[in-house]
């Protein structure tokens, strides 16, 4: 068992897959290069050796084919866990996700379930070529029938993946790949439900809300702000669909000032939904408009410019200043 160990997020994911496969023989893995290689990020390392070709399927190089056949396997009673190699490579499978996987249960009036997990390493800060650093979460959060989650810590990576695999609904599981090698303790049981938002750092003046790798930026910003006399609360959204509104709204009501940050472009984004809902539900507690900090509404730039594009602690702190100016 892994209980109590400190490990990188990559290992926490690997152990979650291993334990899920040991616990349920219907769980199988599908993806490109996930067999003997262990995946390009080594998340499936050692699993092919332990479970073999019939549980770890190194598939042909075709994302629609992978997702479409996973749907068929789920119809047959399997619980496929798919690895999409990089965020920008999920789009060839987009129809199979949004029109097929997401709607299959409704199209069957509940007679068929789709326990399929699609793992997608996402986000920037790895200096990669184009299509390798994107944040596609809004497409999926907008799609009824899907669940969309993104852990930020090793413990969440491990337990949220276990919970996602146990879900009878399709789950888009977004892995903050820049944080794959960030270590954290993995506990012997989950500390929160799959779709719970949690307070990552308590504070009283401003609420900072984010998910995935952005949570680390928010924690850094909160630390800097604390040095300047501003107490920031950081809320890790964890689940982008559904969103656990109560902790977000409660924090907004406590602090009266909210900054929502994300790597994804801001237009029609998850951050926009959070800003709008907090405005609806915490209106009389707010001292300032909810501030959004996002990637720009442009294609993700060449790697030399990614630090300009991606919101960092300075851009978050500028938003904190705007919130405090009211």
């Amino acid at each position, binding site marked *: 068992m892994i209980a109590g160990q400190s490990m990188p997020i990559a290992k926490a994911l690997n152990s979650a897959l291993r334990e899920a496969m040991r616990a349920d023989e219907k769980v*199988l893995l599908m993806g490109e290069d996930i067999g003997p290689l262990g995946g390009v990020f080594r998340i499936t390392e050692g699993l092919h050796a332990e479970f073999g070709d*019939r549980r770890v399927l190194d*598939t*042909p190089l*075709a994302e*629609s*084919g992978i*997702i*479409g*056949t*996973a*749907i*068929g*396997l*789920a*119809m*047959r*009673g*399997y619980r496929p866990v798919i690895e999409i190699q990089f965020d920008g490579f999920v789009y*060839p499978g987009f*129809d*199979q996700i949004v*029109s*097929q996987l997401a*709607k299959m*249960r*409704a*199209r*069957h*009036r*509940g*007679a*068929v*379930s789709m*326990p399929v997990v699609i793992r997608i390493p996402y986000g920037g800060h790895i200096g990669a070529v184009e299509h390798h650093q994107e944040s596609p979460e809004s497409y999926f959060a907008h799609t*009824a*029938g899907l*669940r969309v989650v993104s852990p930020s810590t090793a413990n969440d990576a491990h337990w949220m993946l276990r919970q996602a695999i146990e*879900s*009878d*609904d399709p789950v888009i599981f977004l892995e903050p790949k820049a944080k794959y090698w960030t270590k954290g303790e993995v506990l012997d049981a989950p500390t929160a439900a799959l779709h719970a938002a949690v307070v990552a750092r308590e504070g009283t003046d401003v609420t900072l809300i984010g998910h995935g790798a952005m949570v680390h930026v928010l924690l850094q910003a909160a630390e800097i702000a604390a040095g300047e006399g501003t107490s920031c609360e950081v809320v890790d959204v964890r689940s982008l*669909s*559904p*969103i*656990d509104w109560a902790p977000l709204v409660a924090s907004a009501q406590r602090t009266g000032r909210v900054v929502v940050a994300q790597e994804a472009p801001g237009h029609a984004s998850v951050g926009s939904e959070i800003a709008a809902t907090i405005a609806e539900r915490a209106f009389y507690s707010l001292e300032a408009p909810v501030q959004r900090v996002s990637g720009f509404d442009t294609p993700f730039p060449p790697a030399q410019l990614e630090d300009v594009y991606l919101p960092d602690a300075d851009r978050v702190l500028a938003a904190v200043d705007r919130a405090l100016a009211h």
Partner: protein
Amino acid sequence: MTDAQPIRLLDEAGEAVVTAENEPWRAIADELSTDDRLAMHGEMLRTRRFDVEAGHLQRQGKLGLWVPSLGQEGAQVGAAWAARPQDTLFPSYREHLIALHRGVDMLQIIDIFRGAAHGGWSPTEVPGMRIYSLVIATHALHATGYAMGIGLDGASGTGDASADEAVMAFYGDGAASQGDASEGLVFAASYDAPIVFFVQNNKWAISVPSTRQSRFPLHERARGFGLAAAWVDGNDPLASFAVSRRMLDDARQGRPGYIEADTYRMGAHTTSDDPTRYRSRDEEEAWARRDPIARLAAHLRSLGVDDAALAEQEQRAADEAADMRRRALEATAAASDDIFDHVYAEPHPLVAEQKAALAAFEASFGSDA
């Protein structure tokens, strides 16, 4: 390189075609007794009458849309009879005979087109019969994945055709151009999946001819993917049966296959279509002379089946279509709970909240609303 003729056991007049090449296929078709062939004819008639009546319902405003299968009953009845009870069939949206053969209620098909349900039936109600798929060729992948699952289960490949499972996926010449159709062939070949792709080349993808989809015979294309492939006269029910039976039995031993059935969409693509804009009356009349129902009827007469037996089938089909019509006119509307109740398997706060909000909104108008 290209077969000169599709496999054929009955010519257009219903006369037996006897050649050295078709001997193996004749041997398989010989499994069908005269009673079986009469029953196949009955299913084709039943489907045709249902189809025509559904078209009338659409014209009368009772259905939003209807998708006729006129002319394709011969290809479908052969495939339906070839599939064994343990097989799983993944239709496109024009496989009315396949669905009815498997036990789908006519009204369940009507439910889709009167806007009462997306799926109509469920595979738990009608085992082995998956629901229609409207996004072209997407189900080719679902079928392939299902077949991969059969393989992983060890439910195929034992050598026992009466128990080993197989899958048949149905789509058309237009769908063959979709990436998902090709990816299905890639995965099926790669995993030796127990599946047969039954491709009804009905010559028209709405208004675009099959020559625009492929300059090369589709069955030859499938061979390039590593599948066994056959070209069959789809308006010959006996040939369709023989080829489907053989290829399904090969597939259940791990040799996936592909059948191109040469047939014709005698009707419009849907009731929203107007074929006079893109094809000639001459072409339609030429294919009308190859009507699969007339062909099998002529064959049955040559076997000594009398006109009374065929007339009785006509009457039964007409009665059943009339009954479908009566039930369709009496059918109730869908309930608004259906919008919310089947989206997720597990509780979902947003959907629950919206369902409650709609109920409260409706209740706000009071009981006379």
